């Protein structure tokens, strides 16, 4: 019987374990997790900071799940070495666990900038971090979040939602500079300002003080809670020491296999085709591929890379960014860029199109287009010729208000009983002067009843015309 050992019980590792169990009841599964928490959903941590979910409500699996599914879970037990010769993993306590298949899902860790006083700040990465942030937020009067990427913005928004004034400090020239162009960054900053988050871009943090943050140039931003969200780096130490091939992440092929065929790597610690993914969707796709391969459910399963959609999860800030969003329009003539900007409303929409397909987009501010555009991007589907309709759904299909005057006689007024305006007019001409009389003669309005106003309008208009001509 295959012995599967999984190192890492986060988004990727926990998903893998449940996907394996869904396919195969017999594989022996042991999963190690460095954190003592039950596996939890990192995506929802900003909800915990914002207060819409409690810490025990973001778990991925119920505690009873492991026993019910015959999986050995070792939360809080750190794996410190892999003996590839012997095919065993070794824990900090010296315990040895043999494997036939090993999956590394060690994830990534928060980058803490090397500035004096960094220890006074709280990184925003784990559920423990969230607990610490919440504890501090209870008494804090002002907060600073360092790092204006996706997570930093979500944390800032969450803290502001608790009524805490927040300053968001960002090194780059605009927020989320990897996903957004400068204008979008500015519009996002303005939206956040309306929600109680002050944004400072292009600033360098030099020291974390007891009561704030000192910037390059000497200015101090006051705060009694400092949260760091300065990016992450893959956790690869175990793989490096085991002699696996590691670049930025642990290098894997389309089967998610490392340079040792008995060892796979998935999630944020893995590097596939030169890319280390930092989002959950690719990690779950990878987990599914490995589950297919390990259990033999689908031996042809392969991971071919993911299209990236970044969706900010922050109340009252609607932002989606996907694919290629930085285009130099002056030099890149093969790209078609469609853009609409309305800063006063917090709206910015940009589509990047190549060969009639959507290859990138920024959608800031609420729009019904986001679902359709995400799906067109995901599937690489051909776009309609009318680009305006893409940005403003409903523009083309908006029904024209049918006034009784403009409506042609052939227009159907009552769908349920197939009655046209002409028939209602004829009915009126033979004496019907109200809806009841028209209904009795034509059956109009007697079905779903939704044409009642229209029939009333037509009868009223005909009566008015009569008055005019009389």
């Amino acid at each position, binding site marked *: 019987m295959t012995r599967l050992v999984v190192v890492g019980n986060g988004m990727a590792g926990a998903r893998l374990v449940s996907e394996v169990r869904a396919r195969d009841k017999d594989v022996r599964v042991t999963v190690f997790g460095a954190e003592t928490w039950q596996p939890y*959903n990192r*995506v*929802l941590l900003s*909800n915990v900071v914002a207060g*819409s*979910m409690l810490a025990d*409500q*973001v*778990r*991925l*699996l*119920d505690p009873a799940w492991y026993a019910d599914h015959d999986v050995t879970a070792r939360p809080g037990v750190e794996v410190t070495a892999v003996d590839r010769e012997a095919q065993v993993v070794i824990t900090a306590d010296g315990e040895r666990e043999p494997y036939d298949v090993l999956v590394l899902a060690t994830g990534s860790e928060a980058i803490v900038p090397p500035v004096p006083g960094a220890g006074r700040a709280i990184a925003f990465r784990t559920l423990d971090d969230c607990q610490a942030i919440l504890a501090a937020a209870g008494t804090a009067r002002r907060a600073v979040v360092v790092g204006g990427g996706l997570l930093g913005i979500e944390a800032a928004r969450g803290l502001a939602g608790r009524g805490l004034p927040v300053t968001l400090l960002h090194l780059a020239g605009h927020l989320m500079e990897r996903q957004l162009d400068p204008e979008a960054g500015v519009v996002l900053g303005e939206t956040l300002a309306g929600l109680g988050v002050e944004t400072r871009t292009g600033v360098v943090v030099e020291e974390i003080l007891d009561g704030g943050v000192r910037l390059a140039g000497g200015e101090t931003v006051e705060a009694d809670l400092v949260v760091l969200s300065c990016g992450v780096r893959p956790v690869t130490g175990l793989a490096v020491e085991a002699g696996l091939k590691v670049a930025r992440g642990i290098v894997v092929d389309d089967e998610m296999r490392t340079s040792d065929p008995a060892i796979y790597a998935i999630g944020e610690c893995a590097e596939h085709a030169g890319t280390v993914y930092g989002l*959950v*969707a690719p990690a779950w796709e990878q987990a599914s591929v490995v589950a297919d391969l390990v259990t033999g459910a689908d031996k042809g399963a392969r991971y071919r890379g993911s299209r990236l*959609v970044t*969706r900010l*999860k922050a109340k009252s800030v*609607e932002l989606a960014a996907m694919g290629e969003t930085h285009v130099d329009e002056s030099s890149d003539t093969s790209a078609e860029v469609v853009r609409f900007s309305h800063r006063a409303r917090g709206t910015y929409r940009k589509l990047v199109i190549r060969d009639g397909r959507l290859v990138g987009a920024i959608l800031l501010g*609420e*729009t*019904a*287009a*986001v*679902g*359709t555009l*995400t*799906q067109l991007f*995901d*599937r690489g*589907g*051909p776009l*309609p*010729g*009318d680009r305006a*309709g893409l940005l403003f759904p409903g523009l*083309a*299909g908006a*029904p024209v208000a049918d006034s009784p005057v403009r409506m042609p006689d052939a227009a159907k007024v009552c*769908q*349920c*009983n*197939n009655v046209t305006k002409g028939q209602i007019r004829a009915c009126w001409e033979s004496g019907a002067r109200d*809806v*009841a*009389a028209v*209904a*009795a*003669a034509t*059956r109009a*309005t*007697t*079905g*779903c*009843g*939704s044409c009642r106003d229209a029939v009333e309008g037509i009868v009223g208009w005909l009566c008015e015309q009569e008055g005019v001509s009389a």
Partner: protein
Amino acid sequence: MKPLESTIGRMPTSLPVLTPVKAPTATHCPYCALQCGMNVAAGSEESGAGETVTITPRQDVPANAGGLCQKGWTAGELLTGGQRLTTPLLHGEPAGWDEALDYVADRIRQVQAEHGSDGVAVFGGGGLTNEKAYQLGKFARTVLRTSQIDYNGRFCMSSAAAASNRAFGMDRGLPFPITDLAEADAVLLAGGNVAETMPPFLRHLTAMRERGGSLIVVDPRLTATARQADLHLQPTPGTDLALALGLLHLAITEGHLDEAYVAGRTTGFDAVRTSVASWWPERVERITGVPVAHMRQAVAILGGAGRAAILTGRGAEQHAKGTDTVTAFINLALALGLPGRPGSGYGCVTGQGNGQGGREHGQKADQLPGYRKIDDPAAREHVARVWGVDPRDLPGPGRSAYELLDALGTAGGPRALLLFGSNPVISAPRAGHVTGRLGSLDLLVVSDLVMSETAAMADVVFPTTQWAEEGGTMTNLEGRVLLRRRAVTPPPGVRSDLEILQGLAVRLRGLFSGEHASAGADPARAFSTEPREVFDELRRASAGGVADYAGITYERIAAETGVFWPCPAEDHPGTPRPFLDGFPTPDGRARFVPVEHRPPGEDVDEEYPLYLTTGRVLAHYQSGAQTRRIAALNAVVDETFVEVHPDLAERLEVSAGQLLRVVSRRGVAEGVARVNPAIRADTVFMPFHWAGANLLTNPELDPVSRMPEFKVCAVRLERVG
């Protein structure tokens, strides 16, 4: 008991143009599950070609309160049109009743001698009266002694039924009177287009909106119903389950969880909370295409409502994951604390005329009357006693509808089929294949009023009576048992299904043959042709079951304009709202069941890049066997069509009116293009009233309900010529 009154007001109705020779008879429409009340007045004592029948809506039936759609208004043509079957047909030639019945009985004996009892199968319908559905199940189990019986309701209600049973311990479509909807503050309707399928239903929703309530419609198309909605969610076909999970996730995170209700009236919430935590709205948006902001709006409307209802229709249910989709919507309703609270709840919008009663009394493969399970020894004991047979002689569960049709004529499958009130050549999924299976039978017997496409294939056709020519009961979408009354005399030569079953029972005898210990009963008496006698037996058979009709009588139905089951005794008032005091589960609590989204059985790919979804149009009903024979309805639409978004039309260079070929892995169909921005650009729609749509559909089955995946499959479009 005082009849429940309408909340939608009385409609102006037209007066009969003719002076009928008889007083009008108060009965109900022949079509959908709304069972609109109507008065039928015949121009003479006998109906038939050339006669006139006048129909006016009844004001006293709360479901329609004076409203009717065009199908209802024109239903009289069914009685007077010239396309009626009036004589049995044996291999296409007119035959006498005895000759035809003898032939069928002989052939059944031969087939069973060669292939065993299960060599003969029975297929029923959700349009049959309770009496016929009950009698059909009894006939199959006691006379044919076959386990092979199922019905077209499997294609209709089965997913919602399975989900309701597992959550509430009972499947009564709407567990509240329809008039409660007008009093709600919010209604979410997932996958239902009532404005076209049962137009007077919309009046209840309009009444709600006029009082300030909000309507949310979930549909991949901007349907006539969705146009009336305050909020329309337009998901990718096959993703309603993900949407429901996302809505529940938001309901929890936005603080709309009714914790006291969840703690006091339900079980299993923790597992559901954990599972939906993984369905955060941004993830759901990517799968469904429904913007997060719209999901938030929907949840705010539902969560902020004092009274709210969540309803599902076939759009959500006719999937290989339909049961789980309905479960996800029920979980949402439970989290919001709706089911079992006055004026609130979850309900399914039943489709066929007797779709509710038809699924309660034993024409389903796994079921005995009273919504009993055929593998439950106590149920077998009870029903066998009513039938006067030995429970050990009753067969066990048989194949579900599609599996049954798929097995016809195969090794180990039935070799003969008796079919009542259904037209699977048009209505079954992968219909080309099903037609082939029907063609491979040794014997196909069809009972119908007209020469349907399936009847046209039959060895023997029995001409049968229809709605206004017969009595009986129908149970509408509310679980209200109604009286169908005879308004006109059937044409000469036509017999009722009850008479046909008796005719076969006396010839075949089965368990009433005298060889059996329990025998002695006279098959002619065991198979009465009087609906009232059959109903009285049904009452006894259902007594003590989930769907308990014991206390319902024809007199009570007439006096009370319908009686809600369960009604265990004649002095019991009936049960309009069965969950108020508790749920009929062992512990009295409703059950949360964790479910997970998964993709449709067949997703789009390069070869088949579009989704096909199917549905109804206003002017037609089901396989169209009735409505396609009515001139006024054909004048509205008389051919199938393919609804295409303008963007897709532009890309494929298709214009309105052009003939299109729609190709799936299972077949090819043609239809005229209708270009309409109301549909998603990645989806095409075809109505299923004509041969075509179901040649394409996917027969992959739901693992619990055995519902085929009618509502989504992958196709490509080609221009013809």
